[in-house]
């Protein structure tokens, strides 16, 4: 997604997590991602930090969480007379947009079960699905065929069983396991699952990732 403001140009998407790239006259901008939980209109900050588009250190914002969240992106700039001014906000809304679902299972039966959950997601969100599975007959049953190159999707969901991220700081230093860190506030099992998939049924795994549980 692309938007041009007065002086700033912003590219953002939720494809593989939240990504914000931008250009503008300022040296730094401050990006924040909040999440709205079910039945709660209080926004909870998930991650925030400044980016410096013109520099090699931290030129863009990335939050690698891939499962569903009702995310909101906010961008601020510092105005010497007023302090922090919000210049842009966008809340996750995939209505009418292309959303890619990649179902990573070798079981045909499980794939069919997950497709049903994808259809439920599509019904709720009103998005246009692109479905990729190892099974051609399932792929072809969707209007939009999967094998289209360079397509600009709003969001991609990988549905499967993914191991705990090796880059997660909690796996690197066990001493820091329970210490508070500014930023991430949920105890993520990984960036791809909100909960431990080893304790979930097949349908629950898909529902967890798609925010249907």
């Amino acid at each position, binding site marked *: 997604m692309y938007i041009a403001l007065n002086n700033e140009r912003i590219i953002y998407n939720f494809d593989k997590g939240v990504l914000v790239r931008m250009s503008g006259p300022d040296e730094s901008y401050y990006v*924040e991602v909040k999440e709205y939980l079910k039945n709660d209109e209080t926004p909870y900050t*998930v991650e*925030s930090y400044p980016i410096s588009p013109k520099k090699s250190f931290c030129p863009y914002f990335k939050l690698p969480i891939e499962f569903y969240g009702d995310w909101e992106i906010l961008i*601020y700039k*510092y105005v010497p*007379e007023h*302090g922090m001014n919000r210049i842009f906000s966008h809340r996750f809304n995939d209505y009418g947009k292309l959303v890619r679902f990649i179902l990573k299972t070798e079981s045909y039966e499980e794939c069919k079960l997950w497709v049903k959950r994808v259809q439920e997601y599509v019904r709720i969100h009103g998005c246009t699905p692109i479905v990729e599975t190892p099974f051609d007959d399932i792929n072809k049953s969707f209007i939009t065929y999967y094998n289209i190159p360079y397509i600009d999707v709003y969001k991609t969901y990988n549905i499967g069983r993914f191991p705990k991220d090796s880059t997660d700081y909690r796996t690197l230093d066990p001493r820091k396991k*329970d210490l508070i860190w*500014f930023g991430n*506030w949920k105890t993520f099992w990984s960036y791809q699952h909100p909960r431990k998939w080893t304790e979930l049924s097949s349908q629950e795994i898909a529902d967890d990732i798609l925010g249907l549980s």
Partner: protein
Amino acid sequence: MSTIFGFYCGSHSGCCAVVKDGEIISALEEERMSRKKAGDVHETSALLCTRKIEETTGYKVDNSDYRVFVAPVSQKYVEEITHLDYENCSHHDAHAYGAYFTSGMSGKVITITYDGGGENTVMKIYLCEDGKMQLLRQYPYNSCGSLSHLWGFSTSSIMGYDAYNEGIWRMCKDEGKLMGMAADGHYDEKIYKILNSLINYKNLSFYPTTTAWKTKFVCDMMFKDGYFSTKEKREIYCFNLQKLTNDLMIKFVEDLHSLYPEYKKLCFAGGLFANVKLNQQINELGWVEEIYVMPPMGDEGLALGACIKKSHELGEWPKPKKLKNVLLGPSYSNDKISEISKNYNFSKSKYSAEEIAKDLNEGKIIGWFQGGSEHGPRALGARSILVRPTDVGTHGILNQRLNRYETMPFAPIVLEEKFDEIFTCSKSKYTSEFMTLCYSTKEEWINKIPAVIQKSDKTARPQIVVKDNLPKFWEILNEYYKLSGIPVLLNTSFNSHNEPIIENPNQAFRALNKKIIDKLVIEDYVYSTE
């Protein structure tokens, strides 16, 4: 009948405490042993202070009935201390129980805890009555702005950064300097607006969220724009920071009062309430009957709070009671001190209050080492430096000897019996036994005790000395009063700049040896280099 050990080993201010049968046996901060101030370390164990408490009290962790660790708990540090079972205690519960159950307050009380985000929460509010606490509201870190963040990140930015991009002043350590500087600044609409864009208040909510890194971002920008380039500019910034803090918190407390008008007593804990100017503003609200700030109000008080909570749950600490004093650290016998003193070539004489009062009256700087060390950030009559309060020049001399910044104000101790003659407000005297409140000074006293009065706003942060609670401290003050007609002495913490308050006699002797002090009163003897 139980022995309870409490521990906190979080990101700063590690500590240990032990409570037996509802009585505090001992409490000690890790920084006193490690000699690294909270703020200089961002992961701290509680191993050294635990071992010291075990050594001096005879109580052992492994023989205790209960062991309670305050969240966030790091397994690594737990294993350093004990391999036995332990319980967890919520961070803000430890703050709140510590405050309410040492307040001695009866009737309806609101307890508020507020810090930078201990255990993912910035603030909790409890309604308390007759030993019962009910959680009213809590403010998660990620959905609520924090004034503590604003202070912390302002502190680390205001003097610029070192070669490692660390703030020259450190958060969790140097915030008091900003508060001291604030008194000399003035209102600046632009700065106030900028700070207000970081945090605001409405309907019992502080917003927006993520004040931590956002504050750092703005402070970095302000640093580049030259807002901190001179002493005067820094003072203006600090004034507006203090003003915003007061404005938002007063609105918050007033809103709370309009919801619960029958609650007129307030208990506070958490780092924000180390801010004595804020506490003063709240104390001066007309409807407030009394406020109390836990003496170790920051995370250094968590271990004690956790012990008190457990003790309360066991029925051994059923209702709030008053602390006699907070000299809860290790103490040393005359024999032990005498043995240590052999390493130095000092003259030694028997302590006489009259003689020391005479020295004080002559302008000598006296090191004061008595009993167990204080628990918390203030020197309250166990590890203090005492000086007469009558000279403006004392500030400069002391700062030079202690290698401190002149922005740090000095505080008075005052005889309980004379407090009302000198200071204007007479509420919340109990909490002032622990130096947690500022008061305005009466006009006729401002010129008599200039060394302990904030030059610009004429306030002071007095410690009320009660005869029954600190008899020896009261005695020296009274003797000085008899000689000078002034019931006040300057009391500053016994440490050099950037160091924690001293803990053992050796550290006191070293200060005497370096001529930081002129004489050292240590238990029943006086040491000097003469």
